[in-house]
Every structure is written in structure tokens, then in C-alpha cells.
């Protein structure tokens, strides 16, 4: 907010490409890191930590989807399926082959990326709507496969129990320990994504999104770019899936249904397509909204209308779904660039505050 840009001149390309383009950004980042790593976990209750963990995992998944859909323009309605591939790969690797977590996690991401590449192959021929529908098919097929092949899912409930990861002999058991674990992964993922977008590959993502034919003419290998986008995005999804698995202590296909894919799409649209910060905003919003809605509605329902027990639960859960849908439509009509745009508006306002030009 106090990110004053006036007076900072960029004299070299390196300065213009830097991650922190204004001098104060560095200090904001340090403050944020201190908040995330020290202040929040010291102050937060166990419940807040639980929410924070879920949000952090959602952030990672949303960043992955935003790389594919927001930056590379390939719509995917199968993000949760990639997460489930990651989750089950890690579970199967550690249960059946006894692979330690620090090896199972990247391996699961790799398996996800491979599946992502396979799913991405149709993008060579089809795009837009048709690609969206083919990823929808992928979601349903993967969901079905995991559910029905007992070698992967281990029988009827399709859920595998996995131990928590351990660091130097200490198992990460509590929410606080998991919080640090997840946060470190999230920071690594965010920094990687932000840096990726400054490279040639990141630029070619954007070129393919904006006009793929034009991109091809100026020498971008479209097919390779799209497949790389699919691979990276599903790697992120896979890692997010593994984190869910470690966090809950089990891999369950119910955590990765079509509805979850849609929630991730909602995150990046509400947060802002083509923006890393937007993905994070969206993950916060979409994870917290149902929880607050449910609590608020139950309080209102019990207080004003005297609803009890079953009635209360049914009504509030229906209302929750309804409001979620209405909000998506509202955002699309009123603020198509999402929360990130609102944030930028605030920043722009304060850029010249208190002396606006007009």
C-alpha cells in the first residue's frame, strides 16, 4: 500500500524484470513472511491453524490451475483429478513400496505431471470449449478408475491411510507442525511460479493464451508449450493432493470430485485469472466462504426462524450452495478481473495519495 513508485527509475532490463520492482516491496515481503512464519502460528488457535492449512493447500492447487488456465489459456475442469492422482500415487508408493515421504512426494507430483501430459495431448487439436469438455471427461474417467481399480484404491471405501511425514526422526503430528511443512512447500511453489512467469517459457504461455496462431508464427512451439503447462499445472495439483493426504492422514477419492475441480475454477475466477496473487486471494475466499456462511446461517436460522437440528443443517447447507453459485455469477458480471483487480485499484489509489492528479 505504501509501495510508492514515483522516484524509482528502472534503468536496466534486470531492474524491470525484478520480482520486487519497488524498494518497499522487499520489506512488505519480509513483514508477510514474519507474519506467516512467526506471528500467526504463535497466536492462532488449533482451529485457525486447521483452516490455515486447508487454505495453504488450496493456494498451491489454485496457483497450479492459474498457470494452466489463467496464463496459458487452457481451461481445465479436471484439476481435482490430477490432485487425486498425486494423492493416490503417494499413498500407494509409501504403503506398497515403503518409499519415504521426501521421495514419494516429488514422485507423486511426477506421476501427476505425466497424467497431465496425457490429458493435455488433445489440446494439440482442440481448444476452448472442446478442451474444457475433454478435461471434464478426464476428471470422470480418473475418478472412476481410482474408485474401481482396487490395486490403486485398496478396496471398497477407496481410501488409504497414510502416515504423517517425519523430519529427522520427528513425525509431524500436530496442526502446527503440519502448518510449517505446508507453508514451506507453498512458499517454494509460489516463488517457483513467479519466477517461471519471467522466463521464456512463462512468456510463451501468455503468448499462446493471447493468440496461439500468432504465437506459432513468432516461433513458439505451441504443442510443447501447452503440454509443459499441463505438466507443471498437474505437478502443482499432485503436490497439493499429496499434502491433503498427509494432512488428513488418508487418501480418499471423495476429496477430489468434480465439485472440487469446480471450486478450484471458482477460486481463480474470483481471485483473478492470470495472477498469482489472485490465486491466493481466491483460495482464501473460496475456502473460508462456506465455513463462514454455514456458521452465520446457522446462527441466523436458529435465532430468527427457530430452526432446529436437521432442518437447520439442511436449510443452511442448501443456502450455502445457493449463495456460492450466486456469488460466482455476481463476480463474473460485476468484477470480471476478480479480487486481484480490486486490490490493484486500492494500490493505484494510494500510489498518488494524498495528492491525486485530478
Amino acid at each position: 500500500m505504501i509501495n510508492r513508485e514515483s522516484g524509482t527509475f528502472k534503468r536496466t532490463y534486470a531492474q524491470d524484470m525484478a520480482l520486487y520492482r519497488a524498494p518497499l516491496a522487499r520489506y512488505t515481503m519480509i513483514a508477510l513472511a514474519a507474519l506467516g512464519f512467526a506471528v500467526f502460528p504463535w497466536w492462532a488457535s488449533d482451529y485457525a491453524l486447521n483452516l490455515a492449512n486447508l487454505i495453504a493447500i488450496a493456494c498451491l492447487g489454485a496457483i497450479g490451475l492459474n498457470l494452466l488456465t489463467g496464463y496459458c489459456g487452457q481451461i481445465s475442469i479436471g484439476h481435482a483429478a490430477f490432485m487425486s492422482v498425486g494423492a493416490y500415487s503417494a499413498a500407494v508408493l509409501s504403503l506398497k513400496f515403503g518409499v519415504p515421504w521426501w521421495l514419494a512426494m516429488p514422485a507423486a507430483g511426477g506421476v501427476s505431471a505425466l497424467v497431465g501430459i496425457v490429458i493435455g495431448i488433445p489440446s494439440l487439436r482442440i481448444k476452448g470449449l472442446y478442451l474444457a469438455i475433454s478435461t471434464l471427461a478426464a476428471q470422470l474417467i480418473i475418478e472412476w478408475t481410482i474408485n474401481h481399480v482396487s490395486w490403486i484404491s485398496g478396496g471398497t471405501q477407496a481410501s488409504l491411510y497414510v502416515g504423517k511425514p517425519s523430519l529427522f526422526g520427528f513425525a509431524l503430528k500436530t496442526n502446527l507442525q503440519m502448518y510449517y511443512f505446508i507453508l514451506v512447500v507453498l512458499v517454494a511453489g509460489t516463488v517457483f511460479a513467479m519466477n517461471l512467469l519471467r522466463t521464456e517459457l512463462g512468456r510463451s504461455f501468455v503468448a499462446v493464451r493471447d493468440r496461439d496462431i500468432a504465437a506459432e508464427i513468432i516461433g513458439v512451439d505451441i504443442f510443447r508449450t501447452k503440454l509443459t503447462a499441463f505438466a507443471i499445472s498437474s505437478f502443482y495439483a499432485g503436490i497439493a493432493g499429496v499434502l491433503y493426504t498427509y494432512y488428513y492422514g488418508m487418501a480418499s477419492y471423495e476429496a477430489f470430485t468434480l465439485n472440487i475441480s469446480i471450486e478450484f475454477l471458482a477460486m481463480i475466477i474470483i481471485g483473478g485469472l492470470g495472477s498469482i496473487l489472485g490465486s491466493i486471494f481466491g483460495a482464501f475466499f473460496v475456502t473460508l466462504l462456506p465455513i463462514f456462511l454455514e456458521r452465520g446461517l446457522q446462527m441466523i436460522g436458529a435465532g430468527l426462524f427457530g430452526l432446529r437440528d436437521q432442518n437447520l443443517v439442511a436449510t443452511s447447507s442448501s443456502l450455502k450452495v445457493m449463495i456460492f453459485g450466486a456469488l460466482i455469477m455476481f463476480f463474473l458480471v460485476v468484477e470480471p478481473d476478480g479480487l486481484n483487480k480490486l486490490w490493484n485499484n486500492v494500490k493505484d489509489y494510494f500510489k498518488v495519495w494524498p495528492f491525486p492528479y485530478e
Partner: protein
Amino acid sequence: MSYYVQLLLNGLFIGLLYALIAVGFVMIYKASDVINFAQGEFVMFAAYVVAACLQLYDWPLWAAILVGLAAMVLLGLLIELSVLRYLIGRPIVAMIMATIGMAAFLRGFAPLLWGIESKQLQLPLPEEPFFIGDLTLAPTQIFAALLALACIVAVGWLFVRSRIGVALRAIADDQQVAMAMGIDVKRYFALSWALAGVIALAGGIVWGNMLGVDIQLALVGLKVFPVVILGGLDSIQGAILGGLIVGITESLAAGFVDPLVGGGTKDFTPYVLMIIVLMIKPFGLFGKETIERV
């Protein structure tokens, strides 16, 4: 032998019902280029309205259907006027997401009004199945197939013969030219949504009658995608043929593959079929191929 014929026949009948839903979907896509992810929820909502009138308020069937008709036309118009009108010209993902939002809204709205528990949508049909040789046919199947055929024929007639149909086809062909010829494009967008609502009502009645009415009914909407991709997104005859192919494939898969792998292939084969079609012939059997120029 008769087992296979029975499978084929079941597939044909169910395929007609898929086609019925798909026609509503194609209608919207053709006119306004919107992929309607809420088609299943439309069907569910229509079934909810009719079932609620019948079961909760004890109205006669004709009154329930009239109320359903009014509700669906209103719903179609409302969606177009309040949301989709503002999204014209936006990226595809925005359109998709808007209809997904609509779907979520309806999935919460219907049970909020009429309760989450499953309802029955009973039609005055005989209970006894018909026999043709060894083959059995349930009266509901026959009624559903007849209703589906009637709707499809009506939509076909509308598109080919009527003034509205000519206007809709002109819009599908080129919106700007259609505008220049004096067609009120926005009005026809709204009209196509209202019509899709009416078709969803027919779908809701037959599907609700077969499966019972609760929010699970919306899942039939997912079956629309293989159907329309197979037939081509903007082709009515494609929707019919696609529906039949998907219905038969599903039924045969359930008959042949299910015993081998232990069930559930019915929900899975249509999508495999769809991916194959997408790889070989992305625009489907009858879809209009778009050629992209810079």
C-alpha cells in the same frame, strides 16, 4: 439372442431420453454460443416444480405441468436477462463458470423451497409391462420415448419451418449480419433460453418419473456432454444420433463389460467414447467445423 436385442432396445430408449436433454443444450449453444453446464440442473428444477405441485400441494397433473412451464420459461428468461447478457464477448471460461454458478444456485434453491428428500413424480400410466416376443417394455419407457420424439420433432420443425427458427439459424450463422437484417439478437437469445427451459421441463417429467426427484437428478446433465460432442455441438440431428449411440453403448457396456470388471462401466464408457471422438473428429458427426483465420 433376445438378451442382446433387449439390451439394444433399452439402449435405444434411454438414448432418446439423452437426446431430449441434449436438444435443449444444442438449442442454447446454437443461438448464443453458450455451453450450458446447468442443463442437468434445469431438468432437476423442472422435475422439482412438477413433483412439488403434485406431491406437496396435491394439484392435478395438468396444473402442475402448466406451473412447471411458466416456471421454466421464467427461469430461462431470468438467467439470460440477469447474467448471460452481460457476458457476451467475454472469454469462454467466464461463460462456463457462469452456468456452473447457475447450476450451484439451482442445486441449493430447489431443495430449499421443497425439501431435500426424494419425491415421486407419478404419471397416470399403466403398471403392467408390454411384451413383444421375449422383449419387455415398461409403459414409462414408451411414454418417455414418445414424449422425447414429440419434443425433438417440434424443435426440428421450429428450426426448419418457423420464423423464429429462421431467425435463430441466422443468428447462429453470423450475429452481425443477423442484426443488420433487422433481427433483434438479444430477444432471440432470451427466447432460446426460454425454449430450452421448456425442453428441460419435458426432460424433467420423464427423468423425474423414472429416477425420482432429488438433487441427484441433476447428474443426468453430465451425460449430455458425450452426446453433444459425438453429434456436434450445434446440430440437432447430431444430438439425436449422439443420444442414441451413447444410450446403446452404455447399455451394451453394462451388459457385456460389467460382468468382467464388476460393474459401473455404464458411467464410464460414454466419456471414453467421447475422448476418442474428440481426438479423431473434434467437431463431431454433424458439427460445423470452424476454420480459424488470423
